[in-house]
């Protein structure tokens, strides 16, 4: 009776390989994670608690030495008025981008889901199209459209005898920058919400119609609550993207004198690291930004899952 024994040892071999297999499949992920995530994060933490000390006149091989700095860099980062101003600017920018983009995305998704609206296929493609345009190119295109000598807005206002505003100055600069993000992001969020809307079972719509709901009531009372998880997700992505704004203000800089090199916190990090040559300050600032992002993200995720759980329990 060797067959059963053979098969049982084969099974044992199989189960060992089955136990080892997931680690094998995850090996490339693990290697890349260690090399390009864990190591850089560790290195950034290390750099953030070091500083360059100048000895004597700072000349010769012993003139500059890297020494332990403790929380010095963090203290400097948190009291740096440039960084705080940048954070406030991004807050103001985000206060425009997030609600307007989310509102438009939801609005257009509901229109796409409404049978009585014509041109839905065209509208869907056109509004999603900016997703295919890189942020740098989007900023470049809008940047030219903002220039008073090119802007159609200037032409239109002058035609009726009104003074044209300089879109790249003062408060309108926030609107100008927000517009680029809204233009680029609305379509993507719209598609996510629209896909969720399409997944609502037909009988739900049917029941609402039989109960005499108007399309507006159906949208407000049935559709929006049912796609809430998608709204939460897109909201979350929008906030993260806002905190990390870099490409658009950097691209617009050549077209206006009103954007400093430290307009957003991320630009400040780049400035410190590569122009100012202070990698220790840059590392500390980057760690602070990461901590703020993580705290906000996890707090938000916790809120969202707590809400889901409450709803699950209520059902």
């Amino acid at each position, binding site marked *: 009776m060797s067959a059963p024994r053979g098969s049982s040892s084969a099974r044992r071999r199989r189960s060992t390989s089955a136990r080892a297999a997931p680690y094998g499949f995850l090996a490339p992920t693990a290697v890349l994670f260690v090399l390009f995530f864990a190591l850089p994060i560790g290195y950034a933490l290390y750099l953030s608690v070091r500083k360059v000390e100048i000895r004597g006149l700072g000349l010769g091989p012993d003139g500059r030495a890297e020494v332990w700095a403790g929380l010095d860099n963090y203290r400097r980062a948190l009291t740096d008025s440039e960084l705080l101003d940048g954070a406030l600017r991004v807050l103001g920018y985000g206060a425009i981008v997030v609600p307007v983009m989310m509102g438009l995305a939801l609005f257009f998704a509901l229109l796409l889901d*409404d049978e009585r609206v014509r041109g839905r296929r065209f509208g869907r493609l056109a509004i999603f199209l900016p997703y295919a*345009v890189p942020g740098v190119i989007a900023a470049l295109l809008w940047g030219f*459209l903002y220039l008073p000598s090119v802007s159609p807005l200037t032409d239109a206002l002058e035609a009726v005898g009104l003074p044209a505003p300089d879109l790249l100055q003062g408060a309108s600069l926030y609107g100008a920058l927000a517009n680029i993000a809204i233009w680029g992001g609305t379509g993507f969020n719209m598609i996510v919400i629209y896909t969720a809307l399409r997944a609502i079972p037909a009988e739900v719509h*049917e029941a609402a119609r039989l109960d005499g709901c108007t399309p507006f009531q159906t949208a407000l009372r049935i559709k929006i609550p049912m796609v809430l998880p998608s709204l939460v997700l897109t909201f979350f992505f929008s906030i993260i993207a806002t905190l990390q704004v*870099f490409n658009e203000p950097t691209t617009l800089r050549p077209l206006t004198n009103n954007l400093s090199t430290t307009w957003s916190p991320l630009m400040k990090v*780049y400035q410190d690291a590569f122009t100012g040559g202070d990698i220790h300050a840059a590392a500390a600032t980057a760690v602070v930004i990461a901590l703020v992002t993580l705290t906000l993200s996890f707090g938000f995720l916790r809120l969202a899952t707590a809400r889901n759980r409450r709803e699950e329990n209520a059902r």
Partner: protein
Amino acid sequence: MSAPTTSANTANTANAANATADARRPRRIALLPTAALLLGAVYCLLPVAWVAIAATKAGNELFSTFTFAPGGGLLDNVSDLNGYRDGIYWRWMANSALYAGIGALLSCAVSALGGYALALYRFPGRETIFNVLLAGVLMPPVILAVPQYLLLAEVHLTDSHAAVLLPVLLSPFGIYLARIYTAAAVPQDVVEAARMDGTGEWRIFRAIALPMMLPGLVTVFLFQFVAIWNNFLLPYIMLSDDEKFPITLGLFTLLNQGSTTPALYTLVITGALLAVLPLILLFLVIQRFWSLDLLSGAVKS
């Protein structure tokens, strides 16, 4: 995409009756919402329409003629762009295609392996690994990019194609998508049955799971392709030799030089048009293959 087909059988008869009733009376068109949707479409097409028109203007017409009045200089502009520094523009386009094509393909492969392992195996550390990866999504690129630059500089890899390719190969978001899709598309029983038949783990993945995962992987590939094509911060930090620039960085430097040499603006605009057109065409062709249900949590298991 799935809404009409998922309707329960009980509702089908009622739907059919309604459908014939709807067909008999002319469908009402909601004018105001239709107008709103078209207005949104116009807003989104406006900059694209502008760049198409502006690329036809000669340098002196750019700031003097009406915004949407076409000029007659398109061919001159294109040949100027071709001639600019021995056609470095096309070099940038080729670099972008290389970074995005190879980068997306490799990162899609890594995501497929990782997502498959996380979806179909129960093993110690599974949730920890997944959570650590997810935290990676939330990591601002700059906290990674600056130390990545310094570390790559240690091994003399900065200012190389590898410096732009290697850091994008691991995509936590791609693994997340691959995991959700695999959990929904590859039945555990099928894998179990193959294992009973004595099929090796790698062969099960290659021959059985991979074909089932393919539609989801197309989505992962496209996401990565667009993300890498649009990437700016990483090449901006890593590269100094403009022969290795992707198109985003190339156009940015051209725009930067334009603020002192306005003649370059025409090149920037023509370059932007030629960079956007293939992407839009590609996008129109492939947008039907996207399974965005993945994102909205609408995947049915």
